[in-house]
């Protein structure tokens, strides 16, 4: 007789790397408009605690006849993927909702043409801190809108950024000709809120000001999570005109970095781009090039990459044919 372990499993190192990659992607691509009062709905930052069976396949309505050992499916239902658990607010929330449960099913017979971040790491299966809006349930029962995984350490920063979103968006859409524009953008870049710095950095990367020295200087941040998010953006966004500039900035950063934690942050960012930017050939190629350069640099510094499974996962792709 074997009892099932009802405790949520400790995430494997592989899952931890994927969790980090998803958080990097989600913070880099977050749009405050998705959470504004005039947008989807009201937002919540919550800790997701999946139930032990979340992420399991099951056939609704079917059961095992324990007397015969037969699998009985009275309605000939198809197998589905179950996501279920609890959520509890972290910090304050404009919705006033503090906790709740979730459960929905997803089809399991999907032939996936492309993968979403949720397919590669789901906080609703493995846990995490998520910002989302509460919406009417979708067709499969999911009640969350604009769900994005964030670094738990960024909960307060995300909350502050969303509360200030209207002023922030007005600044960034005002145009470079407005008096004080550069001073205010530089203030955001240098500020203590890593998410608003990220949003300002992304805004600059999308504009003709992409080569502002203050933007490049941001890569020298000591915050390894912020560094990973900024590297992700610098690999993903630049158009052809600026790509060589940002590839060079990242190369210089790599050359000047010997801290294993910062190097790992660079690796996480490149891995996240390889994971989520497969449809962006130049970004994908830049990430692959960076990962190979990182491998050489790490070996030259004699950092023991075998001790940390994250390094193996990050470097795995570049050793594969066609990767």
């Amino acid at each position, binding site marked *: 007789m074997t009892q*099932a372990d009802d405790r949520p499993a400790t995430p494997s190192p592989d899952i931890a790397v994927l969790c980090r990659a998803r958080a990097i992607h989600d913070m880099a691509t977050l749009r405050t408009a998705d959470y504004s009062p005039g947008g989807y709905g009201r937002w919540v930052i919550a800790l997701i605690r999946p139930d032990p069976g979340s992420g399991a396949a099951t056939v609704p309505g079917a059961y*095992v006849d324990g007397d015969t050992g037969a699998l009985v499916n009275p309605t000939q239902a198809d197998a589905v993927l179950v996501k279920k658990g609890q959520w509890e607010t972290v910090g304050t929330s404009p919705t006033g909702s503090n906790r709740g449960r979730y459960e929905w099913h997803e089809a399991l017979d999907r032939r996936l043409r492309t993968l979403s971040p949720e397919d*590669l790491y789901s906080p609703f299966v493995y846990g995490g801190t998520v910002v989302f809006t509460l919406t009417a349930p979708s067709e499969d029962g999911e009640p969350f809108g604009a769900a994005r995984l964030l670094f738990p350490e960024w909960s307060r920063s995300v909350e502050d950024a969303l509360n200030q979103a209207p002023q922030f968006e007005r600044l960034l859409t005002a145009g470079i000709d407005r008096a004080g524009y550069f001073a205010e953008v530089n203030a955001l870049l240098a500020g203590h809120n890593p998410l608003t710095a990220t949003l300002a950095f992304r805004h600059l990367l999308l504009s003709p000001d992409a080569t502002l020295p203050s933007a490049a200087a941001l890569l020298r941040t000591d915050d390894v999570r912020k560094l990973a998010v900024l590297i992700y953006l610098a690999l993903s966004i630049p158009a052809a005109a600026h790509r060589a500039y940002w590839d060079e900035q990242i190369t210089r950063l790599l050359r000047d970095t010997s801290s294993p934690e910062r190097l790992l942050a660079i690796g996480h960012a490149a891995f996240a781009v390889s994971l989520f930017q497969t449809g962006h050939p130049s970004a994908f190629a830049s990430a692959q090039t960076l990962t190979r350069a990182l491998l050489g640099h790490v070996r030259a510094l004699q950092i023991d990459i075998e001790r940390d499974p994250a390094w193996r996962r990050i470097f795995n792709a570049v050793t594969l044919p066609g*990767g």
Partner: protein
Amino acid sequence: MCWKSDTPKPSQSGTGTCPPGSTAPCPLQCPAMEIEVNNTTTADDDVVQLRCTHPAGRKRVACRIRVTSAPAAQATTVVLTNPDGRLRFPNAGDATATVTVPADGSWAAFEISGETASTALNDAVIEAHCNTATGATLATRNVTVFSFDEARMELVQGGNYAFTNGTYTVTGAHAVSYRSRARIRPAGVSCAAPQVSRLRIGIAQESRLYRHAVTWGNPTITWRPGVAVGTSVTVPRTIRQSVSYDPSVPLPVADSEASVAPLYDQPGKSGTLDPDSLQLPIGCQPSAGTASATSFDTPSHAAPAMAEQDVSSGGVVVGRVRWTRINSTRDEEFRAFCVAFDTSDSSYCALRQADWEIHIDSAGTATDQHATVHADVDAAAAPATGASANDVAHTQGVAAVGATTTTFTR
């Protein structure tokens, strides 16, 4: 009969003569005429695409002919011919065409299609003859039948499949990458001609086989509270979910997506995979470019790490059984095509084809679990069209594997 010498004569270019004193229009005399291809005066667009074999079809180009010095005495019967055999008017059996050209100078329409490829610019000739195919030549017009050569549909094997949480996929790479290209011939054909400028080289794909399975084993049980000690249940030791095309689905099926159909991929659409999935033909690219249309594919499926099901005893649910994933398999076969794609009507002509397949098992050697690609050859059939592989009916089921069971006793 011919016109009397004191009666104004209509314009004529026929070589026949009529007896003096005739009082009726001479049937051997036809007025001079002019021909336009693509219904324009410019010669740059006097081009027509070579007929397609896969699928069979002909691109038609609108043409017209008229009397140059109207009014003529009467409407003229004109027989259009093409001595070099590179054209048709416009169907396969239409080596010639008979057109009635109005006397008042208005146009008479006809169509051409490309039967045989030109080897040089303007080496196909439309001739307009008076009354019969061997009658006097009233007008000629040169045409180019353009085609494609050096077509390639290259496949590049990508990374290895592995589990990424609950998905069986390739991460940090693609399963396979595509490069599709072709060169327009003859050299110097005008890329600005509408018949050419709307064409792109792209990628189509069809699927001939699809099935995947996920197998779970090593069951454990969580008893419901209050279940009596000594209660026993028997459960399958191993279960499997199997998914495949429904037997009713005719194969092969198109591998596409609604926004990019009928191709496998197109840029600028909601379902775009690669922004460079369409390219101008080589010979029309800026700066003598030779870029290929590119895309990629990483067929994936959900392979949850666990499966769960309620278990009953005496008709009452007494617990929940959990099985853990043992392995997942995937078998899929594809054919990719290099195609010349007409952006004006979404039609295409297949030029080259290449096969690739996935026969993978997560329980096998990790470095063996990847796509297998094959060299390209000339297209031998038209790509499948219609409902896409992701939208056709699938059959799926979950069943016990074998008769081995496990018994749990509370």
